[in-house]
């Protein structure tokens, strides 16, 4: 395979007119910008159209995606993104609008966001949503900035934020970004929040607790109401990290569990493109008492007219240009309308069923991290395999040979040799059975030929990458000066 970058393939003088000519007349940059803002031409590669097509087609063939393979990456909810989402978000009227158009011209788009907000409010019990944040992590930061501002306006002296030791890494990171001290609470042996330990660290200076429910072990925090009580009694707020919301659609709401601020990853639960295939959307929802803190603007309606409402009393301001990734919102809206109330309930029921099916079929060969029932994902602890010299990493890499994306490894951090499997509701029983068969086969391979596992994957153009070198000496960009 030709591994060269497109820059390295450049052939001076080769070119094509494959960029479509715009319908309007273009001005030269010098006619619009002052001389000091002009730059010289970039040394972009020169290639013919065919060479460019081949370059990217070949690259795309190397891509491992949900459209090509089973992708049970835990906590990531890699569910299928129905193609109708793409079709409808590519409608001319959505595709060719510009945020600088007048509100009157944008009313269809504004109405869609308004309606999406109403649906998500019903699903979560939240009062209002903001769709500006364009990732889960940005949604978290937005939510926690609101909590910070809330305490400031209420003149509450708050200093710390609590996270369980099973939390996503973004939770303590967000807390630190907001200037809070992060206090980690150890989980109990079942992998749930330890109420006694929690009570000991919560006091009047507690700004919030950040929780995922189901948590990262795929377990429902069954004491969530007691947790909410402890936090609220001390004047703190509950932040819900929506990463695992796929387990709860139509079953319960973050509001019923006592949460005050939440984010939903539309690119997880609501079937919009995920990961590097993004862009993402971290919708942030709040209960009544926090609506005055939302990022401005929100979309409101006055006499059948939709408009950007900037009058939000204690708004934390904007968190992103314009209004987030609009076309992602179209996809989520299509998804909700197609499924409806009954469909969404079945999404979660099947997501939970699929995870538990895998758990039951594998539990004799791989240790399960907790005895508590699993929700939408199951965490295995490959300690028995590790004792025989095969760590979770080798098992994960070997799955690639069998045509599957590895599950999440070594997370949550409190589980040794963790493999976190989230099949999602969109996989058939046949696919689940194939995954189960391969996991059992790999377990037998440990006895038969462990070296095959140490050397896996065997079928990919790139074998094991040198993660250590990549982390210690990252080489992240092409340098023009290399010539």
């Amino acid at each position, binding site marked *: 395979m030709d591994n060269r970058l497109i820059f390295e393939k450049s052939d001076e003088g080769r070119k094509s007119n494959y960029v479509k000519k715009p319908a309007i007349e273009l001005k030269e940059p010098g006619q619009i910008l002052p001389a000091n803002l002009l730059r010289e031409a970039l040394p972009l590669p020169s290639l013919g159209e065919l060479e460019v097509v081949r370059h990217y087609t070949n690259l795309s063939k190397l891509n491992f995606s949900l459209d090509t393979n089973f992708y049970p990456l835990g906590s990531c909810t890699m569910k299928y993104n129905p193609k109708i989402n793409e079709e409808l978000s590519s409608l001319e009227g959505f595709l060719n609008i510009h945020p600088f158009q007048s509100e009157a011209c944008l009313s269809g788009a504004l109405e869609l966001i308004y309606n999406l907000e109403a649906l998500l409010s019903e699903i979560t019990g939240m009062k209002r949503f903001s769709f500006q944040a364009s990732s889960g992590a940005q949604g978290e930061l937005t939510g926690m900035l609101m909590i910070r501002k809330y305490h400031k306006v209420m003149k509450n002296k708050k200093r710390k934020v609590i996270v369980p030791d099973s939390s996503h*890494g973004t939770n303590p990171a967000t807390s630190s970004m907001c200037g809070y001290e992060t206090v*980690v609470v150890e989980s109990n042996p079942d992998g749930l929040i330890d109420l006694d330990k929690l009570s000991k660290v919560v006091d009047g200076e507690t700004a919030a607790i950040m929780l995922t429910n189901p948590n990262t072990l795929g377990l429902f925090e069954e004491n969530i109401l007691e947790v909410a009580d402890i936090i609220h009694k001390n004047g703190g707020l509950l932040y819900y990290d929506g990463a695992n919301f796929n387990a709860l659609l139509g079953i319960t709401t973050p509001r019923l569990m006592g949460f005050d601020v939440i984010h939903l990853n539309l690119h997880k639960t609501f079937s919009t493109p995920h990961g590097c295939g993004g862009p993402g959307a971290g919708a942030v929802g709040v209960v009544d008492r926090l609506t005055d803190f939302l990022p401005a603007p929100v979309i409101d309606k006055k006499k059948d007219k939709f408009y950007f409402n900037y009058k939000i009393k204690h708004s934390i301001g904007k968190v992103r240009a314009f209004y987030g990734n609009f076309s992602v919102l179209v996809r989520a809206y299509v998804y909700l309308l197609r499924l409806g109330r009954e469909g969404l309930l079945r999404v979660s029921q099947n997501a939970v069923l699929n995870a538990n099916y895998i758990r039951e079929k594998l539990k004799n060969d791989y240790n399960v991290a907790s005895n508590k029932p699993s929700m939408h994902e199951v965490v295995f602890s490959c300690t028995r395999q590790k004792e025989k010299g095969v760590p979770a990493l080798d098992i994960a890499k070997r799955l690639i040979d069998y045509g599957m994306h590895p599950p999440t*490894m*070594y*997370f949550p*951090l409190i589980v040794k040799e963790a493999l976190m499997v989230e099949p999602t509701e969109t996989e058939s029983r046949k696919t689940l059975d194939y995954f189960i068969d391969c996991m059992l086969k790999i377990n037998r391979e440990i006895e038969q030929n462990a070296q095959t596992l140490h050397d896996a994957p065997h079928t990919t153009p790139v074998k094991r990458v040198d*993660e*250590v070198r990549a*982390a*210690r000496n990252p080489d992240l960009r092409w340098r023009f000066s290399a010539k």
Partner: protein
Amino acid sequence: MSILKFSKTHEWAKIDNNTAVIGISDYAQHSLGDIVFIEVPKVKDKVKAGSQFGTIESTKAASELYSPLSGEVIEINKDLINNPQWVNESPLERGWMIKIKIENNSEVNNLLDEAAYKDFVAKESH
């Protein structure tokens, strides 16, 4: 002569009168895997027994470093920052992280000696 003590969070302290050199145990470096990044406090910063004094990152995860003892940082292993692999290669020697002036000698009693730490690790890995 210095004495070697361990914490249940897998840090060690080499105690010499009222100073201590601090790093992580061989068991800890082994569990973490290849270390790629280390963040430690500055000289004159205060560290507190049982509290976080830094961060260590491997290809698997980022973890907190907890100080076995309270005191003031009097020296840091500057060369280690650019050579994090030393933690893997030589956790108890070249992989040392900070040196502190011990604030409260009685805290030393809360730490484990080498034999007790070995027992603790044996239990924890099962």
